[in-house]
């Protein structure tokens, strides 16, 4: 780690001011990604703006047909929230499957999606649920937010404040863990609302989370795992290959995880 200035705003306003003013600053949420990269000297911001002192960024509310989740809400809070468990048990399960207890109690939904790790779980989940990401400046639909591996629609100085998640969908997420990191080696989130089906795949794409159109079309006709029989898995050449899994294996796993997600989503 290199030396840096540290700011801890107490309100969103103060945070807004700081991000506009302080040069070469990084927002700090749970620190589960930012701090390790700083320790390894892979990131060296001149300043860190810690959002942990901003109370309005934490919490989960039901607003009409939506769940509204504050950006600084930890994975553990989402996993154990009675509201989330009742309205979207699949989302609670997704959060419960992130990392380990330490990571779940420190890591936040805002930090996770701002980082958009190609193997993170939330991006697939929020895509499949048709969530909306709210920042200090605007509202961005999930479909426009995740723009590629480690890249998002966020502008310089933009702070995620909350995530709006529509309820009422059939939703489940099936994750195949990387045996070492336990991030998603392949994760498939399936959401069905009315006749629209979204199948979002994480961990596998060479450019981060993506939607699997063929599966969506097939499941749109009949929302059943069997509908995926005969559908070709996403082509290996679009997928990641590393020491843990070849692109071919990932392609195969997408099919398996998609079926498992559909089966789970239709279970109740």
């Amino acid at each position, binding site marked *: 780690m290199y030396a840096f200035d540290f700011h801890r705003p107490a309100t969103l306003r103060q945070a807004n001011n700081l991000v506009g003013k302080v040069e070469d600053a990084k927002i700090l949420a749970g620190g589960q990604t930012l701090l390790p990269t700083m320790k390894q000297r892979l990131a060296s911001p001149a300043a860190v703006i810690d959002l942990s002192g901003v109370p309005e960024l934490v919490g989960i509310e039901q607003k009409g047909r939506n769940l509204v989740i504050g950006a600084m809400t930890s994975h553990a809070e989402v996993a154990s929230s009675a509201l989330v468990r009742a309205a979207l048990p699949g989302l609670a399960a997704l959060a419960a499957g992130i990392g380990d207890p330490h990571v779940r109690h420190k890591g936040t939904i805002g930090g996770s999606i701002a980082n958009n790790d190609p193997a993170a779980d939330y991006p697939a989940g929020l895509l499949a649920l048709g969530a909306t990401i709210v920042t200090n400046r605007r509202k961005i639909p999930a479909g426009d937010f995740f723009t590629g591996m480690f890249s998002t629609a966020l502008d310089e100085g933009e702070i995620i404040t909350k995530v709006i998640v529509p309820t009422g969908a059939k939703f489940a997420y099936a994750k195949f863990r990387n*045996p*070492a990191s336990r991030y998603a080696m392949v994760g498939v989130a399936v959401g069905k609302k009315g006749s629209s089906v979204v199948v979002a795949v994480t961990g596998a794409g060479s450019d981060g989370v993506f939607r699997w159109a063929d599966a969506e079309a097939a499941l749109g006709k009949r929302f059943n795992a069997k509908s995926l029989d005969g559908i070709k898995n996403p082509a290996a050449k679009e997928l990641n290959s590393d020491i843990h899994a070849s692109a071919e294996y990932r392609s195969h796993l997408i099919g398996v995880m998609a079926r498992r997600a559909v089966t789970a989503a239709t279970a109740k």
Partner: protein
Amino acid sequence: MAGTGIGARVMRKEDFRFITGKGNYTDDINRPGQAHAYFLRSPHAHAKIRKIDTAKAAAMPGVVAIFTGADIEADKVGGLICGWMIHSKDGTPMKAGAHPALAVGKVRYVGDHVAVVIAETLAEARDAAEAILVDYEPLKPVVDLASATKKGSPVIHDAAPDNQVYDWHLGDEAAVKAAFKKAKHVTKIDLVNNRLIPNAMEPRAAIGDYNSGEEAFTLYTTSQNPHVARLVLSAFIGIAPEHKLRVIAPDVGGGFGSKIFIYAEETICVWAAKKVGRPVKWVADRTEEFLAIAHGRDHLTHAEMAIDENGRILGLHVKTRANLGAYLSTFASSVPTYLYVPLLSGQYNIPAIYGEVEAVYTNTAPVDAYRGAGRPEATFVIERLMEVAARELGMDPAAFRKKNFIKSFPHQTPVIMCYDTGDYNASLAKAMEIHDVKGFARRKRESAKAGKLRGLGYSAYIEACGIAPSAAVGSLGAGVGLWESAEVRVNPVGTVEVLTGSHSHGQGHETTFAQLVAGRLGIPIENVAIVHGDTDKVQMGMGTYGSRSGAVGMSAIVKALDKVEAKAKKVASFVLEAAEADIDFKDGKFSVKGTDKSIDFASVALQAYVAHKFTGEQLEPGLKEGAFYDPTNFTFPSGVHIAEVEIDPDTGVTTIAKWTAVDDFGVIINPMIVEGQVHGGIAQGIGQALLEGAVYDANGQLLTASYMDYAMPRADDLPSFRVDHTTTPCLSNPLGIKGCGEAGAIAAPAAVMNAITDALGHENIAMPATPQAVWQAAQAGLARAAE
């Protein structure tokens, strides 16, 4: 068993300290005026160092000093050593390349030590290290083990022009040839023993401290054998004579072998402390541990077994290529030779064995002993062969093993070892019963109904522990003796300190050693303190590895206790005014035979020190005795582990469904601690079989340099183990102990792989059997079945 003596499940005395955060690890120690060391490490696997420019770095804030290989050379600091001489088949000694603590002229693996920066803070040391300019001329690296000695390969050490360290053999080649001629059936197998990276919870650390008034050094270090560290640093590396060098290994958070060795970092810390006139502290971060700690295993093996028409083994021929990495680590040469081939007989009566081992250099981290050290590799070879042979012969794998078990003892194998005792049938039968092997067919059907593949695998392992009779290992090339020492100091009030050359870094010696002493002297266990890990307190000792602390370390304590008891009897005879021959000692009381006259142990201790009841001519005052114990044989723990796995053919995920271990460790001091050792060992063995594996890319970059990519076993990867025992007490030591520290790691890999191949009906899948590898094998198997 109740009480606190041998056999009791005494809670660990050390745990209060550890659980409440009161442990005292090297990093907990800070010396006044201490500076911090940071090592600049090579980013190249193989490169010439043309020039190192430290001028800019030296001028950075907080920098105290920067040293490179040139300074080491100028000070004539000796190189790191390998303490076991191996001779090749042709009689030539192994080719040991120079191993300077800081690279001289060349770097040989990613992580090799190029320079050390000593600064006021660690951050300043790191900043300065980044400013050091090293002009490298990258050379082609040698990474692939199989082709490392090919003609035209780049040369890693001039001393070994073809990258071969030695080409060694053991056994009777002609007898083995004859056996294969007679054979009705020959089973052949090719095996990879995957390279592992030790991950003790506590990373390595060192503080060097120099007292200019006394001209004496102190080294605090994460060592499993502080006396050996002192000996090597003194006699070979030349830091200071032994009486001017104190080595302290305080609480150490796990070692698994990796902290036996004397590394560059502690050498530099202690040497530099005098150079800069300040204590120098270094604590490894996890990445440094991945890159530069001594790795384990890494064998390629071709093995063949000759079998007659009755299913009896006639002979075994094993050819192994072992990767020793870029430099020879402290005991590296012994691991794939004398700790490996002599164990290839397993639990079986094999009349002829011939083992050939070619050890090679590669541009990877040094490889040395890791939990089990050679013996897991041997067990993997013999137990995979047994399984494959049984299947080829159409025999039940348990029956095939039974048929070939050694049944009478002592048993001399054709490869050095003489097994003193054992009952292999007993452990197999007990394991099969506990495991409900009979119910396996039903469980397999149930799995099949759920779309899963189920398999069962045995591993009937043997290991040689209690390392080792000094004369024997000396004749095989060891540079040291492998006895152990103990001193029992009885205080005037009857409490006892035991100074032991063994070193506890997770084994629980403070408990088990105290159980022995408390039971023997009839005193409360709270009155016994175990002292270890400090060369100024404890007489010369050899440390802890190779499951030797019970069999060797405790045997030394027994010898010292014998002397204490003899002396105490003398004291009691004066106090009780009786002949020494009439004194009995039992349950902490000395009594005169046939009378009701007695005195307890504490009172005798007091009398020994006040010395009022005898004169100086009659008896020396005091009650303190020391002993050295040199084992007369290895010990031979053995047992049977049964793994049952369930495989999801859709994903390749292997779940350990059931695990049974029946071990024969001889006499058990504390069953709870033994079970803990077995659990941990099995976890490591399952880790090797399913998860762990170091991967270097073609350029010699370590791809598995963090937990993001190196898969350690976690609790939820493991089932609840069923652990039980059979007992044949060891005949070669006074307590009948065989040792238990490595058994799980030795037994488990073969059991898992035998179970997986049983489930898949596919004979060759390499470790680690990752989901991808198992899925591919399962698909191939299904395709074959469909044909």
